[in-house]
């Protein structure tokens, strides 16, 4: 079962996506901000990270930068989400951008695409 780390400061989004993605066959762990997420990947490396951009303590872009700097997560696919439109702001730091409010089918399609070993 692919492991996804979901990072968002909106707790209702964490709750909803954890349930929905769980029903679609993913093992979802959650963090409320970038700092929490970095602590989480120390103990368990996810197959994919979905992170919000605007969060307290550490924003999503800083988290992406830190994940890319760690050898264990340098190639981990990352989906950045935000209510703001940021699709081309930092293209090297994440693999996909999904604007909020995210449609679940579009999000799952991106997850599948990024977890597909033949995607490159």
């Amino acid at each position, binding site marked *: 079962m692919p492991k996804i780390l979901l990072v968002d400061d909106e707790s209702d989004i964490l709750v909803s996506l954890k349930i929905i993605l769980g029903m679609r066959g993913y093992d979802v762990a959650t963090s409320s901000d970038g700092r929490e997420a970095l602590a989480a990947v120390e103990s368990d490396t996810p197959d994919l990270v979905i992170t919000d951009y605007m969060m307290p303590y550490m924003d999503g872009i800083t988290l992406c930068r830190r994940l890319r700097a760690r050898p264990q997560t340098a190639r981990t696919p990352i989906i950045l989400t935000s*209510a703001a439109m940021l699709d081309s702001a930092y293209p090297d730091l994440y693999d996909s951008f999904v604007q909020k409010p995210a449609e679940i089918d579009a999000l799952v399609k991106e997850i599948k695409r990024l977890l597909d070993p033949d995607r490159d």
Partner: protein
Amino acid sequence: MHTVEARPYRAIPTEVPGLDEILGGGLLEGGLYLLEGVAGAGKTLLASQICFSWARAGRRVVFITLIAESHGKLVQHLTRMRFFDGAMLGTNIQIMSGYQTLLDKGFRGLFKLLAEIAQQHNPALVVVDGFRTVREHLEPGFTMSAFIHELNTFLATTRCTGLLLAPVCGNEARPEHTLVDGLIELSRHTAGMRRTREVEVHKLRASDPILGRHLFSITDAGIRVFPRMESTVSRRMPQAAERKERLKFGIPTLDEMLHGGLMTGSTTSLLGAPGTGKTVLGLKFLEEGLQAGQPALYFGFYESPDRLVGKAEGLGIELERYRESGLLHIVWQPPLEYSLDELGYALLEAVSRHRIRRLVIDGIEGFRQSAVRPERMSQYMTALTTELRARGIETILTEETAHEPSDIRALLISALVENIILLRYVERDEQLHRLISILKLRESDYDSSIRRFRISSGGIVVEAAT
């Protein structure tokens, strides 16, 4: 010894049209404000509009949500507003949730989060949407007063302005009401099937707000506040323009009756029953000014511009060429759901924009129909006419009377204007005849005789005294 003096707190304009006027300049840096209102009153929209305004001016703002709209929905809803600028999100505007922090770590945690945000983003403004959630999570041994007090001190120290959004909770006095620097309420007023939006500043420290309720509208341009006309005019007490000239109607006998014309900067009421010729006489007054190159405005409620111009042309009053050349302006406001102040500001803006000298407001009944609080009408019209007089504009107001007005003094307008001209019908020899008479002309003698007058394709003719 080195001394560091405290800098005074500046008022930063919100740039929300009309709001800064009632706030006495804007929101103070380092001030803590509570914005209350019923659901759907426009709290989040108003706060968002201020955020974008400040962000556009280069300031950083942070919008923190507790239990409130999700960030995705919030932004989607804002994209239809003209003040929305997606490029500001994630740069000068940060949107974050503080709910989990409040749940996990309580007041102290939320306070620490605010401190962390201030350190990281150095915002000029922090908005907390869903402040009700804080009330709902009161912890034993820690009061709301203590939280507000600490927050107030923190904001004052960092010179960051705080705006807390919360629903109104009846008339119950809450500790935060006494501790915040400003308390602003958004509400709705119901009159029949109509509802109007109103804003009221209950309290504002170190500022001079315009107290009382003011109407506001929400369009795709955002919120626009219309400070109550009577409150703004009474504050400024504009003085009447000093120019003293006579302005003619261009109807020789009538101008003679007026001893040369109406005095500049005066206000004239044309009273009469339906069909007596009020509109036509008003248009003739405008035409006379247009011929002398004076910009003119017709502000009416019942006739579309094309119909009005066509009607005038049929009576020998040439308006079309002046409309085409931009000297004549016609504002048509069908008396539907405009608010009283919205109409007043539309009128004053048109007057300023086109440097109007002669103005006809055709049918003050249009204002009366727009008044959801009819008790305001007298003061409102006083304020409006005072303002027009101060701008040196010669204004004619038409007002409908019964066929035989028994007491002119009972009419709303008669006390507000310097000059009154009465139009009537009389039945004689099985025919209706129009009569005109001057009832009042301030600062001048006048001919008080009653004259017959005719309106035909040849124009308006007032008969000479027999």
